[in-house]
């Protein structure tokens, strides 16, 4: 025992009044440069510009064939030209019309399925069996079947879009509703909420993170399916409608066939632009106004 260190007992003290002490610089302002570097947008814009310049310089110096990789400047000109002369905007509109039709109908069907699933256990079993089977099935694989049933035309594309939207939306919404905490359910019933108002005022907001997730996944699948369908069968679909203008996917495919490579790149840029616009403008705005503000985002 004698080898153990012993506690050293020392006098107590009290620092007394601390308010009069001088603190000096507690916070220093950052310099303008430090602030600029800290801004995400500024740094990303710099990287973007640097990448574009590297692309331009590489194509000019190495003399790479413009059928392999066109100059950035040529691509930009092609994009401008396509908007003015190639009816690129109309093609975007064509694509979006089909996409939105499929998305909207898909949402309605998904809502009906989910409603059935939360009302009864049998409905919930039907939904989970169907989603387990059909969610892993790429919608594009149904296109040959759709063409057989509905013929060449946008109704076939809408059919495949439906398939790509319904399952992820219904699956996520259902999981969301199931995951609403027992406490929150009891709180809602404690207020006397019942039926429709119980669903709209309590269940939907509580399950909103999952619902939004489903909407995003559904959009991502639908967008990919649409571009694939247009790439693959866009020509055929465009031909039957008698006009030259198919969708965006068709624009990419047709220009590749004609070896107008800058236009292929211009088409890809447009695809990226539309995608970024929907994902970061529409969905991000909804997200930051709802689930992020409420602190309900899981990851």
């Amino acid at each position, binding site marked *: 025992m004698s080898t153990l260190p012993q506690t050293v007992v020392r006098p107590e003290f009290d620092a007394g009044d601390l308010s009069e002490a001088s603190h000096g610089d507690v916070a220093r302002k950052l310099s303008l440069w430090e602030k600029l570097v800290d801004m995400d947008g500024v740094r990303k814009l710099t990287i973007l510009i640097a990448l574009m310049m590297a692309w331009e310089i590489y194509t000019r110096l190495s003399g790479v064939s413009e059928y392999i990789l066109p100059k950035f400047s040529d691509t930009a000109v092609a994009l401008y030209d396509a908007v003015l002369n190639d009816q690129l905007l109309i093609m975007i509109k064509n694509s979006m019309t089909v996409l939105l039709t499929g998305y909207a109908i898909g949402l309605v069907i998904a809502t009906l399925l989910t409603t059935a699933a939360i009302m009864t256990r049998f409905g919930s079993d039907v939904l989970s069996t169907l989603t387990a089977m059909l969610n892993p099935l790429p919608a594009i694989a149904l296109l040959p079947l759709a063409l057989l049933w509905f013929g060449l035309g946008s109704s076939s594309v809408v059919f495949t879009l439906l398939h790509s939207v319904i399952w992820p939306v219904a699956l996520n919404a259902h999981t969301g509703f199931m995951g609403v905490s027992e406490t929150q359910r*009891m709180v809602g*019933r404690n*207020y*006397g909420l019942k039926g429709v*108002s119980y669903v709209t005022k309590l269940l939907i*907001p*509580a399950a909103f993170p999952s619902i939004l997730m489903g909407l995003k996944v559904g959009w991502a699948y639908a967008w990919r399916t649409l571009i694939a369908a247009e790439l693959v069968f866009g020509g055929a679909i465009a031909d039957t409608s008698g006009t030259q203008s198919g969708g965006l996917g068709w624009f990419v495919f047709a220009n590749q066939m004609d070896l107008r490579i800058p236009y292929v790149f211009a088409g890809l840029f447009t695809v990226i632009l539309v995608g970024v616009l929907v994902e970061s403008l529409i969905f991000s705005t909804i997200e930051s106004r709802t689930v992020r503000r409420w602190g309900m985002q899981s990851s």
Partner: protein
Amino acid sequence: MTQGAHTAAGNTPAAAAVDPLLDVDGVTLQYKTKEHLITATYRVGFKVYPADRFVLLGPSGCGKSTLLKGVAGYLKPVEGNMRLKGVDIKEPGPDRVMVFQEFDQLLPWKTVKENITFALMNGGRCKTQSEANDIAMEYIKKVKLDRFEDTYPHMLSGGMKQRVSIARGMAMEPDILLMDEPFAALDALTRLQMQEELLQLWEDTHFTVLFVTHSIEEALIVGSRILVLSPHPGQVKAELNAHHLTHASTGDPEFGELKTKIHNMLFADRILEDELAAAAAEAEG
């Protein structure tokens, strides 16, 4: 505070002269798990009178939370009946507001104030938004959370969330406030503070509260009347008075004696397993 409790004891009417607010009579409650049908309470009966701080006390498995959920209307008894002001309890309603232990009882998509006004509007206490706003602000001030009224719940600490829940419960002015271990998830210091604040709020309006806890000490401090329940299944072991005890009396010999008495009552003839659970509960509370 202590003074108030004492004088209250002095000039009260006799129990027989007043109708009980809540009458629970011979209630057996059961619920299903995946494998079993569990009997949570067996023929439990008690009466809660206006202005009571009535505590349901017992170890894990005595069905006290289930009993509270029964009173709230989430669960139907298989035998016996529960009456509030002489009317059978059939379903959940805003006349019995529940304060839960879990922090997620506040709706995360509403601010502190909106959480309360939402309850007031949907619970039917207020017809107009401005009326609800006024009442909400009054109670937010009571629990000392003004400045936080426009904050979303995820920004608040656990103690603050429970304060909002209590403010919400009181703002709705229910016939009886049901509290299911509301302070169990808080740290020891915050818990002490909340117990004191609850007693102060009670001094203001003398509301009726049915309070569930597994901490003997908390029961003695918060409660005016304590129902002691035995576990597996829950049955009434005793009903005791604690209206004269508060934080100030924790050092009194009487407080210690009562505590030991309840402790022995609960754990004297129980198997080791229950004693361990109790030790854990004691260490916590």
